[in-house]
């Protein structure tokens, strides 16, 4: 009577590409219009999972940066003079249109970034819309935000964002800036320009006045020129610590305000009384969500030694169900690495892990032949002295260390130049609060990981940067207070 057990294989479940229409080329978005770069330079953006060229994009130079800043400055006078309630309604329109176009934007982001459609659909896009909704609501309530009765905007904000969450990082930057009355010039990363350009189209649909939002696609030189431009009042940067330091140096002695959201080497601490199955999910989510290309990734697993074997067995078992492959397949868990350069960096650091004596393990997985791929990887026997415990890899590589006591866990977790995030897994409430008290990290997740919300401030200690994005605290960066 019994049927033989059989394998339950998920058939391909591709999301349709037809929902998005990618033009063969795009210009810069300055003063409400798409235009070519002044010197006509262009670059290509590819899909990292297949290396297919998606579009040809204008490459901004200094002249374009200058024109964009001037457009933003011109728009600033009337934008900042608008009653907050009117600015709010523009932002609410934008939020609504993003919700309406969510599927299209999710597919676009997956194609340009390489991350799975399930993530863009279920994580990125809902958060993008939510950020605009949240900050829309602050635009006419600034007097209640705890910054005085009538806090004023700063002026023109120059914003440079990374490739790991392109549209979400754009939302984190633009929503609070506009709500508080600033105008912006934003430079998306060179490997992921498309969602910012589509956002420009959303702004047009919302009727946003010209010059309030300007998008300059291009490379690091355009970003540097933007940051250095004398008529930019506020600089906001998310990216590597090295570039963050360069920016801090370049604006020294000026009146420019700056916020930096930089790298991390988050410690995910699992105690002997952790809810094991949920902790395993948290570990997996912490380092393989977005292919580990997350500043707040839980890239160091600190396991209490007494349960290390048990948790590692459960973790390896769980990793064998991770589905690595075509990001457009709705069942894919782990997609492609964003670029050849990033893949090379991850590979080099992973190799150093082996070279320095840590033990390497990956679940069996078949990687596609074209595109940039790295298998989920685990290193055990790691200590603080290893490079892979110290340097941000920004990829799907987990370094596993052990500890004996809570005090030792805290000490190891804090033993880093970074301080962005940490995780605590234990059933004991007082341990959560006591350990959280001692961790030098801007975001502490207890019995969960990688949770984001527009109401919740995000940012780091130490070399993970300064300033907070999200929440009431996130307004401060864009106000003259």
């Amino acid at each position, binding site marked *: 009577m019994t049927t033989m057990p059989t394998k339950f294989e998920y058939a391909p479940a591709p999301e349709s590409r037809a929902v998005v229409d990618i033009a063969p080329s795009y210009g810069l978005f300055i003063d409400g219009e798409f235009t070519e770069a002044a010197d006509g330079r262009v670059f290509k953006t590819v899909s990292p999972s297949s290396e297919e060229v998606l579009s040809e994009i204008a490459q901004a130079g200094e002249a374009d940066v200058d024109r964009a800043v001037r457009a933003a400055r011109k728009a600033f006078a009337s934008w900042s003079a608008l009653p907050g*309630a009117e600015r*709010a*309604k523009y932002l*609410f329109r934008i939020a609504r249109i993003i919700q309406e176009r969510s599927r299209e934007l999710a597919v676009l982001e997956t194609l340009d970034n390489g991350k799975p459609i399930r993530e863009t659909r279920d994580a990125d896009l809902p958060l993008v819309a*939510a950020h605009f*909704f*949240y900050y*829309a*609501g*602050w*635009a*006419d*309530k600034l007097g*209640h*935000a*705890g910054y005085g009765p009538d806090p004023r905007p700063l002026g023109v904000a120059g914003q440079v964002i990374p490739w790991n969450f392109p549209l979400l990082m754009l939302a984190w930057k633009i929503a609070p800036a506009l709500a508080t009355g600033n105008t912006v010039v934003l430079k998306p990363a060179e490997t992921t320009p498309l969602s910012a350009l589509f956002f420009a189209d959303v702004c047009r649909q919302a009727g946003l006045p010209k010059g309030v939002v300007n998008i300059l696609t291009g490379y690091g030189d355009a970003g540097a020129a933007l940051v250095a431009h004398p008529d930019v009042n506020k600089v906001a940067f998310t990216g590597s610590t090295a570039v963050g330091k360069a920016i801090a140096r370049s604006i020294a002695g000026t009146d420019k305000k700056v916020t930096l959201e930089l790298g991390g080497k988050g410690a995910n601490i699992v105690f002997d009384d952790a809810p094991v199955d949920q902790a395993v999910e948290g570990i997996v989510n912490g380092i393989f969500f977005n292919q580990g290309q997350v500043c707040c990734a839980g890239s160091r697993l600190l396991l209490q030694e007494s349960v290390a074997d048990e948790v590692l067995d459960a973790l390896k078992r769980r990793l064998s169900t991770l589905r690595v492959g075509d990001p457009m397949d709705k069942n894919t868990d782990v997609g492609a690495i964003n670029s050849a350069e990033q893949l090379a960096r991850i590979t080099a650091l992973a190799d150093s892990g082996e070279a320095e004596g840590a033990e390497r393990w990956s679940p069996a997985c078949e990687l596609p032949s074209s595109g940039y791929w790295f298998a989920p990887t685990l290193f055990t026997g790691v200590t603080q002295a290893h490079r892979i415990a110290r340097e941000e890899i920004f990829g799907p590589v987990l370094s596993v260390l052990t500890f004996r*006591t*809570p*005090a030792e866990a*805290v000490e190891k977790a804090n033993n880093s130049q970074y301080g962005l995030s940490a995780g605590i897994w234990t059933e*004991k*409430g*007082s*341990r959560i*609060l*006591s*350990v*959280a*008290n*001692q961790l030098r990290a801007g975001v502490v997740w207890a019995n969960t990981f990688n949770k984001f919300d*527009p*109401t919740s401030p995000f940012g780091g200690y130490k070399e993970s940067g300064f300033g907070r994005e999200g*929440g*009431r605290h996130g307004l401060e960066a864009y106000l003259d207070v």
Partner: protein
Amino acid sequence: MSDTRLSVFKTYKLFVGGKFPRSESGRVYEVTDSKGRWLANAPQSSRKDARDAVVAARKAFGGWSGATAYNRGQVLYRVAEMLQGRREQFVREVGEAEGLSKSKAAVIVDAAIDRWVWYAGWTDKIAQIVGGANPVAGPYFNLSSPEPTGVVAVLAPQDSSFLGLVSVLAPVIATGNTAVVVTSESAPLPALSLGEVLATSDVPGGVVNLLSGRTAEIAAPLAAHQDVNAIDLAGADGVLAKELEIAAADNLKRVRRPQAVDWAAEPGTERLTAFLETKTVWHPAGAGGSAGSAY
């Protein structure tokens, strides 16, 4: 289309539990415009209608207060969207109800729409400005958070039939309370039409209940009702307000006394915080001792 085409009159109903019933008493009363001309008959609610409305509001409270603040904000914004779509209808109704010119009525309706937008943006922020961590002198985590009080009876302003109504209703539900509203006695029609807007805005049934009729008649059982947690007396005159406040004391309702308000001005946060309770939670935390933390 002939000039002599006869229009279809709207029958005005109550809005209770997401549905549109007549008064269980079967009574109606005449509503006239500022010149005494008949506009419509409106339901004349009884204390049983009030009782049923409180039951509906209580039933809806768990789900509405348990929804995320984000979700409530989306719903309130949707009310603004739907109201914007019916702007012309409300401009006419408010003009008739309050004897206003079309342009003056339009100013009011636009302000009411914007008021919904204002409150839509508060749902996920009020906790951040009235709540927070408290630095107690001991090894404890301590957090104060606002919570909605429950079912709130709202006597809508008598004279400001729409902007005033929206200004007293939206802050109550923004934070998760549910409401039983007694509409303006002489000008109930814009309020009852608002029920149509709420019904198409994903507002769960029972979150808002609208009762038209004689204010004193239905306010009395609401003020005395043991399952109503708070009452806003904006629509009561001095004498009535005092009686109601006395009745409300039986279960220590939170009472908001009537006062003169410029409905056009920015409301501030007082109407939001009036119907919030503050809950403070403690938990041992410890700073982690010297020789190996206790935890």
